[in-house]
């Protein structure tokens, strides 16, 4: 239904050859009400500088970064304040000029609702800004240098998972896929970014493709973003003219949640499914989010560390829903105050399908905060019995049987759950969305998954212990055997020694005997002679 405007605007015959309108979709999926127009009508705005900010040290996958500033130190905007701790970790920079107030645990936006270590900064009005040296001619720069820069600038996936970008870019692939689907209801931050800076985005895509040596770029976008599509087509057209090559393809996919899921988008754009436990890179594909591509590009060309992002602030409790440039570390409370949405009953980070509730407005915006959804009324469900209607199976984009998984999870039958491929569940929430009995299915799956993880760890532990025990037994047995062997050897040696001694005695005896006999004979002879004399 939403494909109508695109089809009308871009008559299929008049579309450039590098624009494809995809009609074949993936299995399942749902069509929740989009609510995107409430936030994507106005230009991206900017929030004013708050008095204090809280920068969590763990905003990405991997280890939390290690703070390198001490309490009381003055920092300037863009200054490195925490260093990546290990390969999978990411640098963190100060978003504003200010003073380090304290480094301690405080509430962060995380599904677990737990506290985490954060750097608290009291901001000031200084205007100093730190930038890395610009690399404007990236095409003639060593790739390693570029990847190092992305590492330095603290870029992590801005789509939601927060995977360190420099690791993804350290591979060589054929096709760079850019995920501009933005399939979650309400969220429009990538859409707005594309609308406002299409040329920079295309330039960024070409830059990232250069880093990973990709021959082709495919941009996947849902057909409910006609303005972004129009601007992208113009931007790609001019880039193609400039570069004299048709490097970029734009694939317009039907609007259906979760088309922006990695596996689903992969299927939409390549007509292939991603085999289990195979990463796209192993097949020569790399999938990146729009905002991440932009951040990586700006880190290279402008030397900008990642300290801000576009966040959609929306929901019926927000009187001025739109997209804002928000500095990392800005507390939700400040966002609420500046957008006059203090009456929100429920704050959700991310979209309504996969986001999570944030209970404390002291939680700061992090690198993966794409949306703050403010609801007047908290969503509540009245769980009823499963009637096995199968709506969930129809909606499941992974082609699982959610109703069966639900029974197994409920009864702690994890072996059976695994047999029915629980681990292939992407937790998109389509099943719970359609469930007439309002069962929070995803919650059951998360429970089962964490239990299974626990069991796997326990099993590994016990196996390790068993292995150690067996090794010890073996060692003891070996030592015992060795000892026994040694004793045997010693005994043998003693015996041999004894025998040897015995033999020598015998020889001596024999000799002595012989001597004695000879003496005796001699004596006897002398005696005889004497007698004869």
């Amino acid at each position, binding site marked *: 239904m939403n494909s109508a405007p695109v089809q009308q605007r871009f008559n299929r015959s008049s579309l450039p050859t590098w624009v494809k309108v995809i009609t074949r979709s993936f299995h399942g999926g749902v069509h929740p009400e989009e609510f995107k127009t409430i936030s994507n009508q106005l230009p991206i705005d900017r929030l004013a500088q708050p008095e204090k900010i809280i920068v969590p040290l763990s905003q990405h996958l991997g280890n939390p970064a290690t703070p390198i500033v001490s309490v009381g130190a003055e920092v300037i905007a863009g200054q490195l304040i925490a260093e990546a701790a290990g390969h999978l970790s990411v640098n963190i920079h100060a978003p504003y000029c200010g003073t380090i107030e304290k480094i301690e645990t405080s509430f962060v936006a995380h599904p677990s609702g737990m506290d985490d270590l954060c750097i608290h900064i009291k901001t000031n009005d200084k205007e100093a800004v730190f930038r890395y040296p610009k690399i404007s001619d990236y095409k003639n720069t060593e790739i390693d240098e570029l990847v190092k820069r992305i590492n330095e600038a603290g870029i992590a996936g801005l789509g939601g998972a927060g995977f360190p970008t420099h690791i993804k870019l350290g591979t060589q692939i054929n096709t760079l896929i850019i995920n501009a689907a933005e399939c979650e209801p309400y969220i429009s931050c990538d859409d707005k970014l594309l609308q406002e800076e299409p040329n920079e985005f295309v330039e960024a895509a070409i830059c990232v493709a250069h880093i990973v040596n990709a021959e082709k770029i495919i941009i996947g976008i849902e057909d409910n973003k006609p303005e972004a599509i129009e601007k992208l087509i113009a931007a790609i057209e001019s880039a193609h003219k400039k570069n004299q090559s048709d490097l970029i393809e734009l694939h317009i996919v039907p609007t259906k949640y979760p088309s922006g899921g990695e596996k689903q988008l992969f299927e939409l754009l390549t007509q292939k499914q991603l085999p289990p436990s195979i990463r796209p890179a192993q097949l020569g594909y790399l999938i990146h989010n729009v905002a991440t591509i932009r951040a990586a590009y700006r880190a290279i060309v402008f030397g900008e560390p990642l300290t801000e992002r576009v966040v959609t602030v929306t929901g019926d409790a927000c009187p001025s829903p739109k997209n804002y440039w928000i500095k990392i570390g800005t507390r939700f409370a400040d966002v609420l105050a500046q957008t006059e949405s203090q009456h929100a009953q429920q704050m959700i980070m991310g979209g*309504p399908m*996969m986001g999570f509730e944030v209970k404390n407005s002291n939680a700061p915006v992090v690198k993966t905060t794409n949306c703050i959804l403010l609801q007047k009324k908290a969503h509540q469900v009245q769980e009823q*019995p499963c009637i096995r209607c199968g709506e969930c199976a129809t909606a499941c984009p992974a082609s699982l049987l959610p109703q069966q998984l639900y029974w197994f999870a409920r009864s702690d039958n994890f072996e059976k759950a695994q047999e029915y491929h629980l681990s292939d569940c992407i937790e998109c929430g389509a099943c719970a969305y359609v469930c007439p009995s309002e069962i929070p299915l995803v919650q059951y799956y998360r429970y089962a998954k964490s239990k299974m993880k626990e069991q796997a760890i326990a099993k590994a532990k016990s196996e390790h212990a068993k292995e150690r025990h067996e090794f010890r037994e073996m060692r003891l047995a070996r030592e015992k055997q060795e000892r026994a062997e040694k004793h045997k050897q010693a005994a043998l040696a003693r015996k041999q020694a004894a025998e040897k001694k015995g033999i020598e005695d015998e020889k001596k005896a024999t000799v002595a005997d012989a001597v004695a006999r000879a003496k005796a004979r001699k004596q006897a002879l002398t005696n005889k002679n004497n007698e004869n004399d």
Partner: protein
Amino acid sequence: MLNSSPFTKNKQSLSGLMTSVAWALLPGFIALFYFFGWGVVFNVVTCAVTCVLTEAAVLHLRKKPFIILKDYSALLTGVLLGLALPPLAPWWIAVIGSSFAILFAKQIYGGLGFNPFNPAMAGYVLLLISFPVAMTAWLPPQALAENNASFIDSLYIFLFSFDTHQHTLAYYRLGVDGFTMATPLDQLKTSKTMGYLISEVTNKAIFSDIVNVGWQWVNAGFLLGGIYLLVKKHIHYAIPVGVLVGLLFPALIFNGYSPDEYPSLIVHAFSGATMLGAFFIATDPVSAATTYKGRLIFGFGVGLITWLIRTFGGYPDAFAFAVLLMNMAVPLIDHFTQPTVYGYKTSPSQNEELNS
């Protein structure tokens, strides 16, 4: 405890689903009422009330909140059973069947969602086996009946087995020709055992128009309601399609092979419980298979068993038996019809890529 995503939900609700199904029964119900009179209404009301009361009583005993009644599943079970009972059967037939359905076929397993058997059909089979005479005493359609019962007479027969003029049910079962009328399927069964050809049987008064004035419209009514449910996506097409194929395909083949021995596809499609069963009874999600292929197989099995019993068995119609038999096979069917999970079906080209 934190709430977990998703924080949004489509409009579909359990009670909405149940009430939609109940509304979709309306055309068939009206046709039944039109052709068979007030007995239909009494049956449906008595069964519905008994089912809801039984459910309430069990919920009370199990110390569960009465809000559960608002899923309307007990009500729907009652309505379905009421529609399946012969009109003007004594009231206690409806009461026994309904209370058994809720008590023994549903609540004893733990209530909605846990019952392996279709409660309405379990109740129906109990009645059919226990009270075969009452359960097979169907009225003739009013257009073909010698005597039509008024509301008061119907109520009297329903409650006391005698109407205001001391007539029993048998009086109202007389057809225009003065003989007690059987249902078309009944007629076929008895005539066949007596050695008549199908064509001879279908020439009788009970068979007119397509199948029979009353039954064809009743089935058409349920078909209409079923199509409404399909369009509204309240039921999945796999089960009804399976049922109709399982029932009508053998009918078509055998009728083509020997039209004198086997009634036609049309007779099967528009007689007895065919459409009610295909769209409303076999589609009970709790006791049916849940996978797509499984539903096709489940439906096909129900249709095929119905045809087999109608054709070779001892009962004129057999939907209830067919459903219960297939209910038993559901865990097996579901186990062997799991869909291929995303990513597990690799094409040869993909394997090549992986290996290269």
